[in-house]
């Protein structure tokens, strides 16, 4: 039942912090990928999402760009 969730983020980005807070509050465990230090992951994020904004949230392969609560809830079935 637990879906695999990855968050591509930067440490300074307030929307990333909010998104991670939201996942924690919803008791969703996730892998936090810091694209400011992990350049390979940054490239991967840009290639997969076709854009450069953070956060990008990967829920079982479904990519959500930005902190969009409705989409996150839907993808997680919350």
């Amino acid at each position: 039942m637990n879906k695999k969730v990855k968050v591509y983020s930067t440490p300074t980005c307030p929307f990333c912090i909010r998104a991670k807070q939201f996942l924690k509050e919803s008791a969703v465990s996730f892998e936090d990928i810091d694209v400011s230090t992990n350049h390979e992951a940054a490239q991967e994020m840009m290639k997969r999402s076709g854009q450069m904004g953070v956060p990008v949230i990967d829920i079982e392969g479904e990519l959500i760009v930005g902190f969009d609560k409705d989409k996150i809830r839907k993808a997680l079935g919350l």
Partner: protein
Amino acid sequence: MYDLIIIGAGPAGITATVYAARKKMDFLVVSGDIGGQAAWSGDIENYTGYQFITGPELALKFEDHMRKYGVTVKEPEQVLDIRKIEDKIIVKTDKGRYESRTAIIASGKRSRELSVPGEKEFKNKGLTYCATCDGPLFAGKDVAVIGGGNSALDAVLQLIKIARRIYLVNIVSHLTGDPVMIDKVHESDIVTVMNNAKVLGITGAEMVNGIKIRYDGQERIIPVEGIFVEIGLIPNSHFAPDLDKNALGEIKVDCCNRTNIPGIFAAGDVTDLPEKQIIIAAGEGSKASLSAFKYLNQHR
């Protein structure tokens, strides 16, 4: 029908909520997000009681305070229209329609857009409105920052540590931010300041590859991979056509947060009150809530 509808959940809206809850009003909060601009501020060192706190942390504390009262919050939900018909205030949103006897508009401000060709197309594809968020992705790259005020200078100072070359494209004849910041920008040898420069468009293929400007009497394209737009903020007041506003689009309020329409109040950055500060917005939110409470008592 509600006693009160609060539009917005930034510092002003949330504080209005706390006061409304304590007055036991029957009310609803409708907002696009929680925390507003405070949630995407960097470091905050001028909110009394906190010598240092980050924007997201303060926003979370605000939210916790609001939730403590078991408030009904419709979020994310966008208000499309508010108007008063006879004694009823009708709020239409992208998800519903609500009726109330009073309303507080605390919808804040959003980033101003350039309105040039390529801006929409390349948004998040090299063009961003949040240097704090996306800056680190432009490590080692040539970038342009548009603007000349404090937010543009702040973006430049963040990018100095990251980017290879920074072009600061400023439409007026000189930088208008704080002198301390201007000095730091001039001290850096990777920053090129271009005053009297007008942005004409954004170029690119899949991602941004340049910015077209008019500078020194000629049009030219500067090759950059990142563009940071920092040209100020505009009030979220478009959904309230019947309210009086100033030339900037800010809702006009009196000392008690009253607008020109009885029963509709406004608070925080969306209003014409001077100085946009978190602590001022919070104080205004509480005042608006108390004004709405008084109004309800007088119009039972």
